[in-house]
């Protein structure tokens, strides 16, 4: 049992903190810390600054930009980014398709796609969910039918986050309708500029347009853009969704927001109930962070730790609870969400953020799915 980081890990942490707080574009950090929506250019610039410093895809194979770090170091890297208000590398690129291609794709595909994926020269979208395939992803119906050297794709994807910026979309398609539903799925890489691909934005409850529907009408996709085996898509999807042990819970960001909220609370902190709320949230967050450290400190190179489900479940609950606290601190001023006013910026963002973050317990495997995983995998129920 050892409380402190090793001197090497401590130095690593300080090196990360120094980079993120002194060598990263300040205006992007300011925007993140103020809770503003980032522009596409800011997200791209952010990832390119990280990539140039070797900090965008440290968990990838070293020949494609990986750093060979321990899980604990990756945790520290991830945590320091969040604490500094540095946007995390685009998850679709860095955490989803990148590791999938590195694991399942041919050398040719890796060489073609991984460098621009790391540098966000290609913006990837995720084509998984469909109107009738949410948590029950395997019942997806978008079809891909082989025709000569192409697959012809038809169907509809939904909840495609930031799909309006997407260049390519990694898409789960049904390639065999005759077998058990999991056994007939494949993954295709689809250029979103192809004829027949249409992106339609969905307005969300916070007033934003973060997600989209993506329609495919007779889209001809070259067959060599199949990832891995034909009908092997379900294995890839499970790999992608269960790939993470590190950064599962947004701990650094939530800590930053909670600390900020305490600053902003002002005289409201004289109220014992408000103080108690801060204590409860700080304690839960501390327990969560320590649990995340337990997971990363003892899961080198292995399978995803089953406790990752706990981190996702509790991490999103606390994140949502903190956004709820901020909204309550804003009080009546929170109503002024619609534009410039005398109300401080944080209070104007409070309600949209609170509403937006309801998504956190739904995406990436809803919290009910996480409970299901805990019950089955860990408790044997």
């Amino acid at each position, binding site marked *: 049992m050892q409380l402190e980081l090793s001197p090497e890990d401590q130095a690593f942490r300080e090196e990360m903190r120094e980079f993120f707080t002194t060598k990263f574009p300040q205006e992007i950090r300011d925007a993140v810390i103020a809770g503003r929506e980032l522009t596409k250019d800011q997200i791209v610039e952010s990832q390119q600054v990280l990539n140039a410093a070797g900090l965008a895809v440290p968990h990838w194979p070293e020949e494609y930009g990986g750093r060979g770090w321990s899980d604990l170091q990756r945790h520290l890297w991830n945590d320091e980014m969040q604490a500094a208000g540095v946007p995390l590398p685009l998850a679709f690129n860095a955490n989803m398709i990148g590791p999938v291609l590195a694991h399942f794709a041919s050398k040719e595909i890796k060489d073609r796609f991984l460098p621009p994926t790391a540098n966000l020269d290609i913006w990837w979208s995720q084509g998984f969910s469909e109107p009738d395939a949410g948590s029950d992803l395997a019942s997806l119906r978008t079809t891909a039918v082989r025709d000569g050297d192409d697959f012809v794709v038809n169907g509809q994807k939904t909840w495609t986050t930031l799909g309006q910026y997407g260049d390519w979309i990694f898409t789960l398609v049904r390639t065999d309708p005759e077998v058990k539903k999991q056994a007939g799925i494949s993954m295709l890489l689809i250029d979103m500029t192809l004829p027949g691909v249409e992106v339609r934005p969905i307005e969300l409850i916070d007033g934003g347009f973060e997600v989209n529907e993506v329609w495919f009408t007779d889209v001809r996709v070259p067959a060599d853009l199949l990832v891995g085996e034909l009908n092997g898509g379900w294995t890839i999807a499970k790999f992608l969704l269960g790939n993470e042990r590190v950064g599962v819970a947004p701990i650094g960001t939530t800590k*930053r927001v909670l600390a900020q909220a305490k600053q902003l609370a002002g005289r409201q902190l004289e109220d*014992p109930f408000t103080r108690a709320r801060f204590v409860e949230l700080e304690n839960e967050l*501390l327990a969560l*962070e320590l649990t995340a*450290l337990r997971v990363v*400190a003892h899961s080198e190179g292995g399978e995803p730790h089953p406790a990752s489900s*706990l981190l996702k479940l509790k991490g999103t609950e606390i994140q949502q609870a903190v956004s709820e606290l901020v909204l309550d601190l804003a009080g009546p001023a929170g109503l002024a969400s619609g534009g410039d006013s005398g109300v401080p910026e944080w209070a104007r963002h409070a309600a949209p953020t609170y509403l937006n973050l309801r998504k956190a317990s739904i995406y990436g495997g809803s919290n009910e799915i996480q*409970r299901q995983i805990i019950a089955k995998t860990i*408790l044997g129920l």
Partner: protein
Amino acid sequence: MDFTYDDEQEALRDATRGLLKKAYGDYEERRKAVAEDPGFSEKVWGQLAEMGLLGLPFAEDDGGVGAGPVEIGIVAHELGRVLAPEPYLTSVVLAGGLVSAAGTPEQRQEVLGALSAGESVLAFAHDEEGSRWAPTATAVTAAQDGDAWTLSGVKEPVPHGARADVLVVSAALPDGGTGLFLVDPTGLERTAYPTYDGGRAARIAFDATAATPLGTPGQDLEATIATIQDIGRIMAGHEALGAMEVALATTTSYLTSRKQFGVTLNTFQALTFRAADMYVSLELASSLVQWATMVLGTGDPARAADAAARAALQVSRAARHVGQEAIQLHGGIAMTAEYSVGSYAARLSALDHLLGDGQHQLSVLAARVEEHPGLDPLATA
């Protein structure tokens, strides 16, 4: 940062578990032990002494083993798993801890030597009418006449106060502050009764009772009492973790075997999801208790006090959740004294209220909420 036990610590855990499994692996044996006075097994107490567990926290010069908080936590955890009724927490950790921290070399050798050898049971007589876990005494007062000291007033409830061979008594000093005294209880008026967790406690009336000051006569020991209470909170946390672990395992095992409507209960998601939430509560509390144990090891009383309050808050929340749900998920069987799980809930309640429940810790922590921007478990001291 390391949350694992070394080989010796694992050996200690295995040996302790082995001993206790033999003693109380069959829940019926525990029932028998608590049914008769003194409410625990003198034989098991002797075995704990033989294994060196009763002297674990004390210096070798005082007849102890000189082990650290991690080792004491391991023993407490194992005691918690089987609801061992032996008064380890109150006799060794609290009363013994006070003698170790405040006693003169002669007092330490005499009292702790006998305690470590299993020859004597100590009790900490501290709670008074209306007291709520403060490190001070008011109802029992100390009077000095030359070198002679006497105590007057009532202590209640005193855990294992009737069986104890030596009492460590807190009392208000004539010139202010709280002192500690060793009292030979022979001839004292002690009214014993069983407690709801299977233990025993007593009302002890002092009436100009002769007492020996622990350490320097007349010294205010409030800070020492507070520190030992903090250690006790963390060790009570370990005991609670052990109890929660088994309460959850008993529950999941019941869910997979008990049939209703022709199927086992784990068929019902309404139940398995609640078990998953119990697991989440347990793991988060476990992380905080392990962390607090490591903080305790740094020897900084202020940091330990903060960590103890945080761990106790988390454990209080978790223990209520796990204890209550363990009963509910079982149904009627858990209401019976014959079945183990209800006793786990009872013991968890007793531990929760031994040194300050969640609300108490919340108010302690809330009083200093603006002293830090946020919490960083990896910060260097």
